[in-house]
C-alpha cells in the first residue's frame, strides 16, 4: 500500500485518474484503502428538479446513485437509501446556502456542495466541496488560463455536542493550470496537497460558523502553500538548472 501511495506521489497529477485505476486493477484487495486515500478531480451532476449542479463524492453516494444537496433526492432514483436526519438535513440546507455565498466571494462562481451524515459517536461528519473551472472558456474572468481547475474537499468530523466541541478537518486541494501563448509556449502546473487541522471551539457560536472559519483558514493556508512553497520550489528548480543571465559570471575575454 505504501508503495502504491509512493507511485501516486510521482505520477503526473494530470494522470491521477489513470494511475488510480491502474493501481485498483493491480491491487483489487486494497481498493477501499486506495479509494479513501487517493483524491480524484471532482465530478458533477445536474439535479433533475432545480437544474442546479451538485458535486459527486463518496459521501453522497449509495450504490451508483448520488444524493443532491438541493432536492435531497438520489440520482438516479434509489430505494432504501440513507438520508441525514431531518435535524441534520436542516443544518445541511443552511450549510449549502451559506457555502454558495462563500464560494461566490472567493471563487467568483464555482460549484459547491455540502453533505452531512450522522456518525457512530453521537457527532456528525460534514463534507464541503468546491469545484472551480478557471479557464477562459469556463469561469476565468481574466482569461489567462487555457485550462485551470481547483477542486477542494474538506471533511470535518464533529465530536459529540458539548460546551466545547471538537472539530477535525482534513482538507485536500487538487489544482491544475495551463497557460499557453506564443512567446512563452505552454506552461503547466498541477498538483495536490492535503492537510489536517483540529480545533476545539465553543458550540454556542454555531456549527456552521465554526466549520466555516476553519475551512476559510485552511483554504487560505493551502492557497499560500501552493503559491509560495510548491510553485516557488519548482521555480527555484528552474533557476538552478539554468540561472538567469544576470546571475551568470561575467564572460571573460578570450585569451
Amino acid at each position, binding site marked *: 500500500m505504501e*508503495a*502504491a501511495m509512493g*507511485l501516486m*506521489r*510521482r*505520477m503526473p*497529477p494530470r494522470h491521477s485518474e*489513470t494511475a488510480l485505476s491502474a*493501481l485498483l*486493477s*493491480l*491491487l483489487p484487495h486494497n481498493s477501499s484503502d486506495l479509494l479513501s486515500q487517493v483524491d480524484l478531480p471532482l465530478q458533477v451532476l445536474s439535479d433533475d428538479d432545480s437544474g442546479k449542479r451538485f458535486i459527486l463524492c463518496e459521501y453522497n453516494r449509495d450504490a451508483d446513485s448520488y444524493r443532491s444537496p438541493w432536492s435531497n433526492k438520489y440520482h438516479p432514483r434509489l430505494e432504501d437509501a440513507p438520508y441525514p436526519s431531518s435535524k441534520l438535513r436542516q443544518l445541511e440546507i443552511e450549510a449549502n*446556502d*451559506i457555502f454558495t*455565498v*462563500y464560494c461566490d*466571494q*472567493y*471563487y467568483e462562481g464555482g460549484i459547491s456542495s455540502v453533505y452531512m451524515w450522522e456518525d457512530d459517536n453521537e457527532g456528525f461528519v460534514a463534507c464541503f466541496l468546491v469545484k*472551480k473551472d478557471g479557464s477562459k472558456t469556463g469561469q476565468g*474572468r*481574466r482569461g*489567462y*488560463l487555457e485550462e*485551470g*481547475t*481547483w477542486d477542494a474537499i474538506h471533511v470535518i468530523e464533529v465530536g459529540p455536542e458539548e460546551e466545547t466541541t471538537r472539530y477535525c478537518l482534513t482538507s485536500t486541494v487538487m*489544482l491544475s493550470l495551463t497557460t499557453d501563448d506564443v512567446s*512563452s*509556449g505552454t*506552461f*503547466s*502546473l*498541477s*498538483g*495536490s496537497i492535503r*492537510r489536517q487541522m483540529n480545533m476545539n471551539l465553543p458550540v454556542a*457560536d454555531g456549527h456552521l*460558523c465554526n466549520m*466555516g*472559519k476553519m475551512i*476559510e483558514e485552511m*483554504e487560505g493556508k493551502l*492557497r499560500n502553500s*501552493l503559491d509560495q512553497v*510548491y*510553485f516557488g*520550489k*519548482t*521555480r527555484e*528548480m*528552474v533557476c*538552478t*538548472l*539554468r*540561472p*538567469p543571465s544576470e546571475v*551568470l*559570471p561575467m*564572460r571573460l575575454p578570450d585569451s
Partner: protein
Amino acid sequence: MAEEETELSDNQKKEIAKWFLLNAPAGEIQYVAKDLKSVLNNDDVYDEAASEAFPVYNKSHMICLEMPGRFGDVLVTSYGELQGNEYLDPKTAQVAIVDHVKQVCTEVRPASDEELPTPYVEEYRCALEAEMLKYVGEAYPKGSCSVYCINGKDVEGPGYDFELVAVIFAARLSPQNFCTGSWQSIWNIECKDDIQVLELKGKLQVGAHYFEEGNVQLDAKHECRDSTMFQSPDDSAIAIASLIRHHETEYLASLEASYLNLPDATFKDLRRKLPVTRTLFPWHSTSLFSLTREISKELGIGK
C-alpha cells in the same frame, strides 16, 4: 462496485507497469521501479515491462551516463542510437554500450568510419559542438550537450544539404529535499546548401517535481525558429550558438514572468486570496436563521 475479480492477464499487467515507468518524472524512474516491483509482486512481468520501458524513457529523457575509461559522459538519445543499446558520443568518436534497466554504460568501443560523418560535415559538427560546449558550460551549472549529424552524414562537400541536431540536457535531483527537475533543449539545424541558409528549430522543455506532503509538477514547453547564413564552419557555429543562447535566455525570462504573474493574475482565476470586500467572510452571522438573506444584503449581491 464491480465484484467480478477477473485476474489481469500478464500482458495487461505488463502494459500497466510500462505506463508507470514511462510516466516517472525525470530522474525518478528508479524510485518508481522500486514501488512498482512491490505493487506488481511479479518479477517476470516487471522485468519484461522494464526491458521495454527503460530504453524509451532513457532516450526521451536523454540520460547522461559516464563512460568507463575517462572518456567523459555520453548522452543516451535517439539521435545517437546505433543499435538498441549502442550510443554514439560524437565528441570522442566512441560508442557506448549501455544497460538500459540499470542505467549504466557497461563498455566503450571506438566508432567505425561508417558510423561517423564525413570530414566535410564533421568540420561543421565539431565547430558547433565546441561553441555549444562553451555556451552550455557558462549557462548551465550542470549541463551536458552533444551535436549529432542526423541527415546527410555522408555528404562529401558543398552542394548538398545536411542536418545537425544539438541537444542540451541538465538535471537536478534532490530526493532528500523532495525536489527534482530537468531541462532539455533540442535544436534541429538544417543546413540548406542551395539557398545558403541555416534553419534552426528549437524545442525546449522544462520539468520540475516537488513532493513533500503532496505532489506538484511543472511541465513547460516552447518551440521557436530562426535562421542565419550558411558560412564557414567556425562562423556558422558562432552564429548558431549565439541564436540558441538568445532564444533560451528569452524563454527563461518568459518563464520567470509566468511565475511572477501567477499569484496575482492566473491564480486569482482559480481562487482569490480574499473576497472583493477585502475582509474575511462574515460567518458570525450564521447564528441567525435567515442569515443567507442578511449576508447577501451585506455583501451586496442579488440572490
